């Protein structure tokens, strides 16, 4: 393995193996090449059979695709994980407090720590939520924090996903697949289990039930339907939680509660884990032409008779302009310095920053403030002259719509290729559950990996793959 400018999580620059991977490396070295090649092929079939597919938007046919899976695990030591969880807990607690504040007294704005225009201009800001506190005071029930690594002790938060973070089914199924393919590996290397995530999710959601819930709270997963790109995950989570998988057309408001049409008649739901966006929740409050939502659900919600997870209006957290203020936000609500740093971010709305960004465009990554999924972003070093000048024009026209970040030296981890191990860039999305008295982080997460050599884009919509993520036991 040649030394490179990037931090490789498995190999040191001299080619020796880091501690986290020593157990894996020993096992790997003992395997026949032909066996590994066969398993490499089997893995794809395993996913095709279980139906873990996603639909790609914008393709002619609503085609189901597989996300490439790489069978070399991404390994994190117990020590590293403990440090990460402290930082994540702090950040997520701050996000939740920020949401409450933003929809109530707005102390943080009064204190002059973040500017008011930041959320006033934000499409995810929901006036309906002002002055209302969701059951248990929880806004961000499920959060995915995207982390990148650049060195032994250098982890950065790249994005906060509090709208409807997806991908957790890959965390679970990647592990299942690995255990089915290499059972003996798990007997040799002690790895923290992730398989109880659905149970933890069900428990965490139930703890956020409204006061009117009787007995064991009824939880339902609300999906846009089988044509949604993440439908498989919605069905998977519902099945694993023992919850109903509902669509808008199954629901209506009955006697002041949101109720689902069962074979027994309409039955009230206490907690809705929605995987539809805010604007489709309630045609009476938002998009009148939406068939995905439930007319009147927002009235029930504001009367405190149903929990919606995540709370409407939390999409504000995903905004990349808000992101740039996260150090201030964490400090304001926790009174502590952030344990997990942000990536340096230039807000193009600021004239000086814009000038800097335009001067250095070919070295920066520029993102849409409201974008997600890797769409509409510019990766300066990989862009052609033409792309750079086109993007510069967009920036000048709408500077407030963009932020810029340095091109990060993302860490690498090897993937399996028929010619042996080859390093690829990756990131990490741990999944965080928030209930009134607890922030619960499952040891592991979704590791996304760029399958192309040298590529820094890990999004599945742009050809990225996934890996099983191991947190080692002490």
């Amino acid at each position, binding site marked *: 393995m040649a030394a490179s400018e990037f931090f490789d999580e498995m190999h040191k620059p001299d080619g020796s193996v880091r501690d986290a991977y020593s157990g894996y490396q020993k096992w790997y070295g003992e395997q026949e090449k032909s066996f590994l090649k066969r398993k490499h092929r089997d893995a794809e079939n395993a996913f*095709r*059979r*279980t*139906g873990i597919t996603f639909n790609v938007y914008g393709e002619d046919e609503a085609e189901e695709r597989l996300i490439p899976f790489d069978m070399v695990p991404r390994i994190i030591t117990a020590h590293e994980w403990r440090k990460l969880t402290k930082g994540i807990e702090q950040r997520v607690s701050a996000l939740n407090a920020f949401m409450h504040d933003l929809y109530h007294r707005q102390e943080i704005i009064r204190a002059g720590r973040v500017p008011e225009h930041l959320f006033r201009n934000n499409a995810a800001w929901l006036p309906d939520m002002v002055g209302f506190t969701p059951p248990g005071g929880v806004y961000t029930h499920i959060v995915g924090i995207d982390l990148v690594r650049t060195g032994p002790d250098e982890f950065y938060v790249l994005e906060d996903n509090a709208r409807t973070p997806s991908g957790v089914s890959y965390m679970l199924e990647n592990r299942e697949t690995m255990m089915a393919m290499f059972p003996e590996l798990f007997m040799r290397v002690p790895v923290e289990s992730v398989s109880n995530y659905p149970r933890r999710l069900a428990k965490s959601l139930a703890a956020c039930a409204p006061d009117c819930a009787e007995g064991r709270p009824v939880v339902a*997963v609300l999906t846009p339907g*089988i044509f949604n790109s993440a*439908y*498989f995950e919605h*069905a*998977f989570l*519902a*099945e694993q939680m023992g*919850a*109903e*998988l*509902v*669509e808008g*057309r*199954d629901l209506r408001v009955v006697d002041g509660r949101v109720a*689902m*049409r*069962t*074979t*027994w*008649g309409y039955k009230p739901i206490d907690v809705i884990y929605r995987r539809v966006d805010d604007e489709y929740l309630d045609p009476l409050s938002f998009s009148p032409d939406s068939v995905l939502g439930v007319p009147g659900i927002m009235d029930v919600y504001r009367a405190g008779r149903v929990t919606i997870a995540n709370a409407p209006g939390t999409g504000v957290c995903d905004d990349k302009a808000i992101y740039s203020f996260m150090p201030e936000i964490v400090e304001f609500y926790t009174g502590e310095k952030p344990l997990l740093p942000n990536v340096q971010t230039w807000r193009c709305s600021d004239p000086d920053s814009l000038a800097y960004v335009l001067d250095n465009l070919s070295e920066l990554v520029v993102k849409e403030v409201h974008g997600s999924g890797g769409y509409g972003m510019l990766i300066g070093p990989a862009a052609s002259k033409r792309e750079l000048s086109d993007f510069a024009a967009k920036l000048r026209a709408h500077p407030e719509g963009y932020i810029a970040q340095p091109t990060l030296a993302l860490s690498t981890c090897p993937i399996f290729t028929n010619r042996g191990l080859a390093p690829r860039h990756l990131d990490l999305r741990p999944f965080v559950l928030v209930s009134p008295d607890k922030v619960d982080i499952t040891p592991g997460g979704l590791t996304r990996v760029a399958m192309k050599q040298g590529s820094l884009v890990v999004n599945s919509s742009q050809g990225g793959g996934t890996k099983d993520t191991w947190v080692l036991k002490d």
Partner: protein
Amino acid sequence: MLGRTANSLFWMFRYLERAENTARLLDAGLRMALTRDSVSAEEEWRSVIETAGHRRGYEAKHATYTGMQAWNYMLRDKDNSASVLNTFQQIRSNAREARSAITSEVWEAVNDSWLQIKDMLARPVGEQRVGEVLTAVRRAGTLAHGAVLGSMLREEGFHFAWAGTFIERADNIARIMDIKYYLLLPSLSYVGSSMDTGQWDMVLRSVSGDSAYRWLNAGQIDARGIVNFLVLDERFPRSLAYSHAALRENLAALARIHGIEGTSNELMRESDMRLSGLSIEDVFDKGLHKFLTDFTAANSSIAQAIGQDYRFLA
């Protein structure tokens, strides 16, 4: 369970049964065509297409009847909404809708079959491949049913799956018999004449009942015996009586679970009363065609009532 989910389960298994019956019918046609000269073979395929109720659609596309055209039309023609390929698309899409109500074993059984069959039907099916395609389609039903029996909780979903299966089976068998009823009507012309036993065989083969029938009747083939076997013999799992009894059990189980009987149970009881103690003479007295049309009508009213009783649709 959600009404919509119950609906998807019910239809998933109806379509599965439909695909399987289509495969059995094609299998019978294939077998007949192989044992005849080319003129009769053309007749056989006309009869298969007709039995499946595809005559109009087929003749809109083809002027002649050949095996290759016939099975490709029934297996994979894009314009044939009842083709096996389209039926499997429905099966899988209903399975996806009901994904949280079926076990992984059932899902994988259906998904595996779909991937295999989709692949097999991606291009025209020639003589060398048609046999294995039909086997794969039949096996899809066997796999899914086995997975249901071996892995699903004996709750609502289980009974909706079987109710769909037996509603569809009864419907398909009755339709096949009705289209062949002119063969099954014992008439003067037939008594004593050498009625084409190959045709009788075809009727039995269409519902995969030829070996069972021979086993029970020591090789004696006659119209009365066949009708008795296909309508009233509860030992044969593709007879009307068997399908009906199995449907009754599943509807009774649903009523037990819900603690209340609905219209579907009432209609089932009425239908039972009409069938109980019925002899084959009664069937012929009434007229086989009339009997079968009444039966299919009652069967589809029960299907309708299940949907209403259990709130399949808003």
